[in-house]
């Protein structure tokens, strides 16, 4: 189900989740998660709320005891290890700063627990505060900081203990959009610089795609797809993954004929050729076309014709909804400086054959 990169799985796995699952009574929050994360790798667990991603993170952190499966860290089984013994740095959604301590004491808390000498404590606090660009704020209290600064303190506090694994639990969801984008870049840079193995839990696909080496898309307590952001986006292996990672148009059709490289699929009144990538398809299928692969055309060879129902301007592109005989098709047109068709206008729509992805109708998971 989850395609793990073989080289990483065998040689480099630093943190391994082996059939990890958690049930609360009869409700199974996490079915069975198997995941190998290489040293220094950044992996995102991406999914909607209730998909089991947070429970998975809590099991890795040691706050939730798994019902089944194992967690291996650097070859050692830590499934039953207490959280304070695991050496994991965690950045929480609420930041969870200690309000009664200064920034310096917050960051130094983990060092106090490790009986670090005074000199080294001060040096390491200064080092991580410098890293998150909060130099000189160590005497402040959390309440005297902005939301973005608090977030940085939370990151510094997690990094100060030189964690074996960094766990990020929706850390950006309380920041505004602009700040969030900046933090993505900055946090990713710090992570690469330190070479720290990181798991990010998020429901924000942009966040997952911009920061991760690999994305594990989760749904209903399973990993339904794992791969690089580009692979996961371009080759979704399930209906769910294709809908959750970016926007997509879904068309239902029936395979009429299977050629060497293409399947001939009837969609309503149209017939389309779709590359099948060596997989066998028959009967009902679903076709996916990303909005950015849909183009408008005046030529008579248009795949479809339809009427523009809405046209939203989003700065760098327009998002059009086009009412066609096959249903509503969304098209994303780059803003090249000229205005798009007006609402109510009839337009021709086309896409190239290789823009279409195909999945069997009854396939819900990868």
């Amino acid at each position, binding site marked *: 189900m989850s395609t793990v990169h073989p080289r990483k799985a065998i040689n480099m796995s630093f943190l391994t989740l082996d059939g990890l699952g958690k049930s609360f009574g009869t409700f199974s929050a996490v079915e069975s998660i198997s995941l190998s994360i290489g040293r220094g790798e950044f992996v995102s667990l991406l999914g909607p709320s209730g998909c089991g991603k947070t429970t998975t993170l809590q099991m890795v952190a*040691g706050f939730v005891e798994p019902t089944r499966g194992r967690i291996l860290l650097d070859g050692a089984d830590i499934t039953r290890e207490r959280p*304070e013994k695991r050496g994991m740095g*965690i950045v*929480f959604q*609420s930041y969870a700063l200690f*309000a*009664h301590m*200064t920034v310096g004491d917050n960051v130094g*808390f983990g060092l106090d627990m490790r009986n670090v000498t005074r000199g080294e404590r001060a040096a390491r606090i200064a080092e991580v505060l410098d890293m998150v660009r909060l130099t000189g704020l160590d005497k402040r209290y959390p309440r005297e900081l902005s939301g973005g600064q608090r977030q940085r303190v939370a990151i510094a*506090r997690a990094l100060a203990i030189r964690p074996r694994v960094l766990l990020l639990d929706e850390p950006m969801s309380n920041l505004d959009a602009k700040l969030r984008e900046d933090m993505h870049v900055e946090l990713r840079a710090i992570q690469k610089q330190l070479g720290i193995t990181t798991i990010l839990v998020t429901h924000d696909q942009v966040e997952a795609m911009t920061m991760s080496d690999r994305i594990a898309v989760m749904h209903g307590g399973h990993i339904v797809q794992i791969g690089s952001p580009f692979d996961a986006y371009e080759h979704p292996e399930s209906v769910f993954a294709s809908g959750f990672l970016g926007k997509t148009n879904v068309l239902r059709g029936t395979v009429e004929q299977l050629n060497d490289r293409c399947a001939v699929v009837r969609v309503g009144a149209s017939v389309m050729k779709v590359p099948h990538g060596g997989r066998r398809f028959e009967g009902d299928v679903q076709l996916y076309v990303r909005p950015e692969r849909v183009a408008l055309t005046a030529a008579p060879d248009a795949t479809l014709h339809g009427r523009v129902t809405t046209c939203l301007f989003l700065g760098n592109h327009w998002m059009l909804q086009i009412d066609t005989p096959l249903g509503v098709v969304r098209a994303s047109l780059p803003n090249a400086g000229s205005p798009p068709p007006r609402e109510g206008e009839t337009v021709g729509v086309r896409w190239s054959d290789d823009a279409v992805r195909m999945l069997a109708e009854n396939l819900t998971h990868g």
Partner: protein
Amino acid sequence: MADSSNSLATASVQTARDSGAPRAGAAPWLLAAPALLLFCGLLLVPLLLTAVLSFHAFDGSQGVLATYTLANYAEVLGDSYYHEIFLRTAGMALAVTVLCVVLGVPETIILSRMKSPWRSLFLIVILGPLLISVVVRTLGWAILLGNNGLLNNALQALGIVSEPVKLVFTMTGVIIGLTHVLVPFMVISVWATLQKLDPQIEHAARSLGAPPFAVFRRVVLPQLLPGVLSGSIIVFALAASAFATPALLGGRRLKVAATAAYDEFLNTLNWPLGATVAVLLLIANIAIIVGCNRWIERRFRSVFEA
């Protein structure tokens, strides 16, 4: 009514303009008026009258005289009989406060971690004492703690003691009774603080390497301090001025300030002396509370400014 409030509003606006202060309007004053009137009528005026009364001279045959004197204060402040009463009151209030902290804080923490039906059930159990008349509750304690009471019978039946432990008409009995009544105030106060705590904070501390006890001592407890302090102030003030429980469980000879004042008023009919005891109790109470408050706030400034 409407007219008078209108003119009042206009008047206050007028004065605000005249004095050049930023115009606040009459609304805050009008909204506060009912509480303000109640406060003045039921607290400030009687308090003032009591204070005035404490300066009146008293004669055994003629009663309260119209002349003013400091003799009452000299008597209370100079007599070791009253010293003992005030020390006993302070000791009792302190013991009850400490017991309420020791019992109430863990109680609240456990309560906050209980699951849904049990939590509300035990909250009612804890708040229960407040729902029962103080006299009934205290007499209940007298039955439990008496020489022939449930507790002593049980202790003797179990062979733990051979003779009844004397609890009624002792300070121990009074402290037990008062703690029972006042623990809910501590629980409510700590509860309010605890609800504001981010549950992820404990996880954060654990992940940074702190074992559970260190998490409690270094992270949870310091953040509960404001709640513990306000709870302690309420408990101390109520314990120091408690009347019914010391009167019923402590008996006639084990006097505290409140019962001593009562006796002056109703037994010796020396109203000025009773008023003096009451005024001094109030002053001592305020001094101790304000002093402790200042000290703790300075000591744990970081927590209280959050």
